[in-house]
């Protein structure tokens, strides 16, 4: 049986990673809700993670996987802080639109 060998090469992972990253980046730039933007950031991070793992496998180098652990732990920390901030914002005002959060700007000019 000659099944067309549908081998999943590294390129597929990279393309998937690029797609996910682009979706995340575009989402970050276009959406206004802070929570959604936050999720987009996570998407981008994980796209990068996927790329790292793919290369680690392809190049047979464990270091790529090690970096992923670092990224994951940093992302976890970021989630903890970021979600806390978002919850605080939600408590202060109904809704969390990024464009409204410009209080740190010098209001006199």
């Amino acid at each position, binding site marked *: 049986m000659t099944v067309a060998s549908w081998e999943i090469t590294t390129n597929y992972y990279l393309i998937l990673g690029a797609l996910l990253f682009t979706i995340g980046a575009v989402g*970050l*730039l276009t959406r206004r809700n*802070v929570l959604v933007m936050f999720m987009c950031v996570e998407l981008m991070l994980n796209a990068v993670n996927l790329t790292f793992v793919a290369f680690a496998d392809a190049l047979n180098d464990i270091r790529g996987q090690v970096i992923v652990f670092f990224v994951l732990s940093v992302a976890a920390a970021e989630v903890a802080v970021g979600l806390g901030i978002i919850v605080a914002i939600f408590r202060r005002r109904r809704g969390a639109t*990024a*464009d409204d*959060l*410009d209080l*740190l700007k010098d209001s006199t000019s």
Partner: protein
Amino acid sequence: MSSRDLLDLIWIVPALPLLGAVVLLLFGKRIGEPLAGWIATGLVGLAFGASLVMFFAMLDLPTDVRVNVMTLYTWLPAGTLHVDMGFYADTLSVTWILLITGVGSLIHLYSIGYMHGDERYSRFFAYLNLFVFSMLMLVLGSSFLVTFLGWEGVGLCSYLLISHWFERNAAAVAGKKAFVTNRVGDVGFLLAMFLIFASYGSLSYASMPVGAKAISGGTATAIALLLLLAAVGKSAQIPLHLWLPDAMEGPTPVSALIHAATMVTAGVFLLCRAHVFLDVSSDAMTVVAWIGGITALLAGTVAILQPDIKRALAYSTVSQLGYMFLAVGIGAYSAAVFMVLCHAFYKGCLFLGAGSVIHGNHDVQDMRVMGRFRKFMPYTALSMVVAWLAIAGVPPLSGFFSKDEIISQAFLRDDYGLWVIGIIGAAFTAVYMTRLIFLTFYGNARYEALPVISGGSGEEVAVEEHEVDITDDADSDPSPTVSYGDPVPAPVGHPPHESPPVMVFPIATLAFLAAIGGIMNLPFTNLEWLDKWLESSFRGVPEVSPDSFIGGFALEMLTFAIALCGILFAYTLYKKGLARADRDPLNEKLGPIAPVLGNAYYYDEGVSRLVGGPGRAVAGWLDRVVDTKIIDGAVNGVGSLFGLMSRGVQQLQDGRVRRYALAIAVGAGAGLLYVVIWLGR
């Protein structure tokens, strides 16, 4: 314990009055009236005892090594500038600490009686102790900077004590005047220190260069003249003398301690301490001598007409300090120190006596309404008569030896101009002191019930300020005596009285010292103890002695004869007192120049006019144009320039998170493109 170990303990001497000042400032109110004074007096007395120990320890050292430097701790370690908090004990500073603590403790004792019932009794003693501490630091400091610390300390205490009765506006103003005038001199001190450090890399006395080889003439002249400026301010010499007569607004013990016996001699001390610079600069010496001589003469001419007993003594002090500067200027340092010591005795006695007179006469200071007080205060009168004969130069009292030594030294060093000035000044000294004594203690009693006729038609209100409108008075009155307002006697029914023993004792002691002080330095071979004692402090300074004993004797007798003429002249004028309280015979004799002398050559008024008129205008111009426009303009201009620049950049940070994200994305994309296109080639 060897002598050097003892001398290392010299820090105890200033520490004792400092302790007193701290205790009295913190707990003075609780300690209360008599005790606060006794604590202060006791601590200064203890310091005198310690000073005596130091004196004998110093005496024990061989004559050629009579210097002991001890370092308490490092005060300022700043790069190449390294200043120790140290004490420099040599014969000069030990002489001075004996004087400060000795006369100081007597005056402290006197103050217990004089300040009785004062509202701020304990604070007065706290400041007095602080003053003694500062003055001791001034003379004991091991470097110019430590001396400067004491120098500023005594200036501060002088200000605080002149303004002790600050409810009186005149006292508050006089304190400020003294303080501000002294700042002018302090500029000289600071600049001199900068110059010394820049030239020799150190400020400590022990490392000062010695001799003409080590010091270039120009630098030495500059340093000496700057130090002279400082000394002129502190010692009230022309042209910065104007603060001292006004300083008499302070309590009389303050006038005696600070403005006669000790602080005002700090200028003489400084010049003695820095004599290495004077020695190589004959130009600076000439300036010092002539400033002293001119001051001695002019202040003497002013003193003869002052109706206020304390102001007359103040001008006398200025004049006597002039003699000390004259002595320093001709290189007769030990004669200057001798004069400082004797002057402290007799002028201290005179001031304390004047304080006793004022105290017993219900705070009236005007000599025109005194007279015949010897009947009421015999001890004060006797003491002041002794001090009067001493200052006038009657042998064998101390003033004869001290002043005549200076005058004959001027002759022996061929400074005949200064010699003549000194002799004329001595005559004036005799005149004003005789006038003071006879107006106060002899003649007719004018302390009450004398008709007070104001000069002229009587339309004037009593003139309070002596500067005001003297010319108008002179026009309306053929004999202008009123250079000081009308004489106002004490309230009727309160005859003068003698002071309590706690005040009389210091006066009598000082009178005794004034009488025998000459023993310190008799002009006979092997009896010049002070000269020999001070020799190690003034190494390399040439000594000049008269060729023969007869020659020296003739010189001194000549001066004495002139002084005697002055005494007799004033005696004939004042032996009967004043016929009318507002008519001063000397004033009438002098005629048109009397108001000039009575008003101190209008110098004070001139300075006021100069500073108040053009001076104020220049300061106003500086304020409006230079300060506001140029200096503030530059500062504000820099500020607004950066403001303008930041306005453009500010637009970038508008607070929109998504725009930041876009900027990051574009930046990251551009970076990526750069890597791919440029580095990938």
